[in-house]
Each structure stands twice: as C-alpha cells, then as structure tokens.
C-alpha cells in the first residue's frame, strides 16, 4: 500500500546519513567519553563536534549547549533549574496555557513547592496574549517560558517581544523550540532568549536525545546529579551515538532549511484541498504558523477515529500532541483557544516533512473526503 507520513510533529523518520554517523558509536567506538584513553577520547571528540553542529543550528556557542535525554528533559531542566537557581530573587514564574505537557507539568511541580505560577491565556488563533504578560509580570518574576511554535495548531509566538518585556523586569526567558527547530530558522540571539529547548527526533535524528541552550554565564540547578558530564550541569554517561546523530541531524536541518518554501507550497495545497470538504475549519493562525503545519477541526468527526481510518489508507497524521492523545479526547490547546469541548475532539493535524512530495498530498486529498464522509455517516453528531 502507498504510504504517506504526515505526522512530523510526533516524530520524524531517521535520516540515513544520521544513522550512518551513529553506527560507529554503537559498534567499535563504544568508549566512555569520561575516560582519557583513546577509546574514550574519540567518543568525547565526537560529542564536542556534535555540540558545535547543534550550536550552529540555533546560532549559539558550543559551551551553551547541554545535551539531555529529550526535549521534555530540556524543558524540565530549564524551568525547574532556572526557577530554583533564582528563587532568592522571587518565586513568581509565568508560562502559557498551550504549552507542551513537559512544560505545563514542570510549572505545576513548582506550584506545589510554593511558587506562584501565571498561565497566560491565548486568543482564538492560539497566540499568547502579550498584554496579559505585561500586566502579570512583576519585579519578583524570575522566569517566563513561552513556546516558539505550537505542536497542535502550528501558531508562532511573539517570543522576541515576550523576551523584551520579560528582560525589562529582570526575568529570564525560556522557549520550547522543539516544534520549530528544523522547520524554520531559529536564532537564539535574534530571539533574545536565555534558554531554548530542542529535540533530535523531530528533525530526522534519533529518539532519546535533546538539548538545552543556556546562555553563557547563567546558573542552573541540575535535574540529574552525577559528575562532570555536560560541565557538571547534567549527570549520566552520555548517549554518545544519540548525540552524534543529533549533531548530524542538526547539520542536515541547517542544510535543508532552503526546502521550507517547497514544504510551505505543498502545505498550502493540502489546506486548500482539505477545506473543500464541507464544515472543515483551519485551526491556528492562517499566516503566522509553521510552514509544514496544517491543522483542522473536522466537524462531527472524532480526531482519533479519523487518524485510525486514514491510517488504514496508508496515511499517517495526528489528532493531538502524541504523548497525550491516548488519554485526553478533547485537545486542551483547542479548549484554551475557546473551542467547545465537542469540537475540540475533532482535531486533525497534518505535518509535512522535507521528503513530502506533491504525489503524497494528491494521495491524501484523494482519500480524505471519502474517509470523512464515511465517518460522518456513523457519527451521531452529524446532521448533514
């Protein structure tokens, strides 16, 4: 069966070049990078080369990159680590209502420890309210964390503006760039952020490795205690092959950024075709969104049912953030954007990759109307 993978926000396939770069470190070059003999030194050198590539992708310095086990760990480290390191200055921290669960739950954990957390609301496009940030922030606020792009609706946030407002009050700024990095240019200096999370597996790298950019000179309380790994900021023997793969994935992501316009063109064709089906609505901002992201509410069609039905046709798409979609039926992000619960269950997300072709999009558009019609026929909510 012809297969079309359009769920690149959940994960991406491993690039063959990434796999080739990783293999030696799963076979003969297995040394512990903390060992000073040649087998350890070659692993250490490979990690440092990967650190340079990852830093280059986001215009950071290599010493500003801390490798982690995931984007979620990077988010946790940034939020808990920066809040703890600055708690003498204040215990007020700010985030938004539409963050990834690794951010929301890290803030909730701080809340249980006595921090005051403000969850900023969003408008119907999923844009975080800058005005609400201005009214919530005080001199006692130590951290503001707002994602660069949202996974479910693709909306890009005004992170640069948010950083300027936060810095005026002396607060640090973190952004979760897991969904954005590799899909749009990400520049930590241009954004003006103090910390930024990225992950390998959403940019054709391996699962199990992420990174936190932490601006030089900032202190952070570790999450995982051990020794000298990551300059004493993140313990545990390094995932050498994973980190090497991340380095190669970052190098390729930078090289392939010129494919963004092709992806955007294909994405626009997909949106145009999907919107031809009656009672389908685009979610998120129509322009200020990731170029590979198309998300919809398909009236009276359960998102999970649609995802499964399309998979039987060889089409893989998403119905919410991958790690929560099995538990929560209504998308908390769509609820925060003001959609009623019933409609927030009808979320359909297509996220393209650099390997997506015109044929893929045509195939999806040839199957989508029929699958929707079939599901609506059995839907108790459909009155069409």
């Amino acid at each position, binding site marked *: 069966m012809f297969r079309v993978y359009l769920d690149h926000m959940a994960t991406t396939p491993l690039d063959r070049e990434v796999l080739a770069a990783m293999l030696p470190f799963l076979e003969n070059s297995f040394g512990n990078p903390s060992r000073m003999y040649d087998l350890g030194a070659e692993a250490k050198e490979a990690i440092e080369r990967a650190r340079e590539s990852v830093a280059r992708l986001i215009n950071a310095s290599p010493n500003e990159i801390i490798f982690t086990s995931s984007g979620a760990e990077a988010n946790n480290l940034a939020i808990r680590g920066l809040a703890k390191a600055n708690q003498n200055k204040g215990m007020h921290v700010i985030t938004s209502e539409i963050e990834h669960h690794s951010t929301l739950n890290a803030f909730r954990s701080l809340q249980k420890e006595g921090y005051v957390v403000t969850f900023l609301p969003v408008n119907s496009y999923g844009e975080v309210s800058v005005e609400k940030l201005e009214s919530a922030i005080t001199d006692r606020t130590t951290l503001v964390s707002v994602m660069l792009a949202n996974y479910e609706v693709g909306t890009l946030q005004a992170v640069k503006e948010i950083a300027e407002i936060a810095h005026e009050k002396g607060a640090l700024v973190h952004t979760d760039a897991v969904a954005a990095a590799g899909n749009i240019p990400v520049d930590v200096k241009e954004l003006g952020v103090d910390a930024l999370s990225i992950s390998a597996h959403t940019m054709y790298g391996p699962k199990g490795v992420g990174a936190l950019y932490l601006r030089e000179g900032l202190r952070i309380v570790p999450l995982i205690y*051990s020794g000298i790994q990551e300059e004493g900021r993140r*313990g545990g023997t390094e995932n050498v092959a994973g980190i090497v793969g991340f380095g190669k994935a970052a190098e390729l992501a930078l090289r392939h950024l010129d494919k963004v316009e092709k992806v955007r063109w294909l994405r626009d064709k997909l949106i145009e075709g999907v919107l031809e089906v009656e009672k389908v609505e685009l979610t998120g901002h129509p322009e200020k969104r990731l170029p590979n992201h198309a998300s919809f509410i398909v009236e009276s069609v359960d998102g999970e049912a649609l995802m499964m039905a399309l998979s039987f046709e060889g089409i893989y798409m998403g119905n919410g953030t991958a790690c929560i979609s099995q538990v929560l039926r209504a998308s908390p992000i769509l609820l925060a954007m003001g959609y009623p619960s019933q409609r927030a269950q009808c979320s359909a997300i297509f996220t393209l990759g650099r390997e997506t072709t015109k044929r893929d999009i045509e195939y999806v558009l040839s199957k989508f109307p029929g699958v929707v019609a079939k599901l609506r026929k059995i839907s108790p909510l459909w009155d069409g």
Partner: protein
Amino acid sequence: MYYFINMTEQKQPEIKFVEGIVADAVEDVVYRMCPMHLMRLEERMKELKKGQILELQTDYEGALADIPDWCRKTGNELIGVEDTGEFFKFYIKKTVD
C-alpha cells in the same frame, strides 16, 4: 563502589573567612556538580600569572576541604573564603609557576 568518608574524623583545614578581596579572574561553578570546582580551579590557575588572584564561586560545601587541600598540594596560597549565604567565594593566589 562508593566510599563514605566521615569528615569529622579527618583533620579539618583551617579556613580564614574574608571579604572585599579584589580578584584578577572569576570562575563561577555555582550549582555545577563535584568535581567541577577542582577541574575549573586547575584550568583557570594555569591561565593566571604568578601573583594574580582567582575568585572561585561554588555552592559545594565539600570545597571547604578540597580547595585548601589543593592549595597545600600545589603550593598556591588560599587567601580566604567569603560566604555569601548562597555560595562561597574562594580567593586563591597563584604563588607558584
């Protein structure tokens, strides 16, 4: 294997508490895990000239034993320690090349 050392049985080095020392270089390893305080101390001291002072900032309490030990072994002078309440500032003068 892990070894647990009862510090009370060891001879504690005498530490002079100071304030207002002006250093030639500052190294911040606050919240960095042990033994970063010793690794960075060694690296930074190599960069300094004889007679210059390093201010090493750390929250690691074990440094109160490690850094005087390191100074004694290497022949450098520990001028003293400032306790900010949040972390320590160790002032080390390079006295040997």
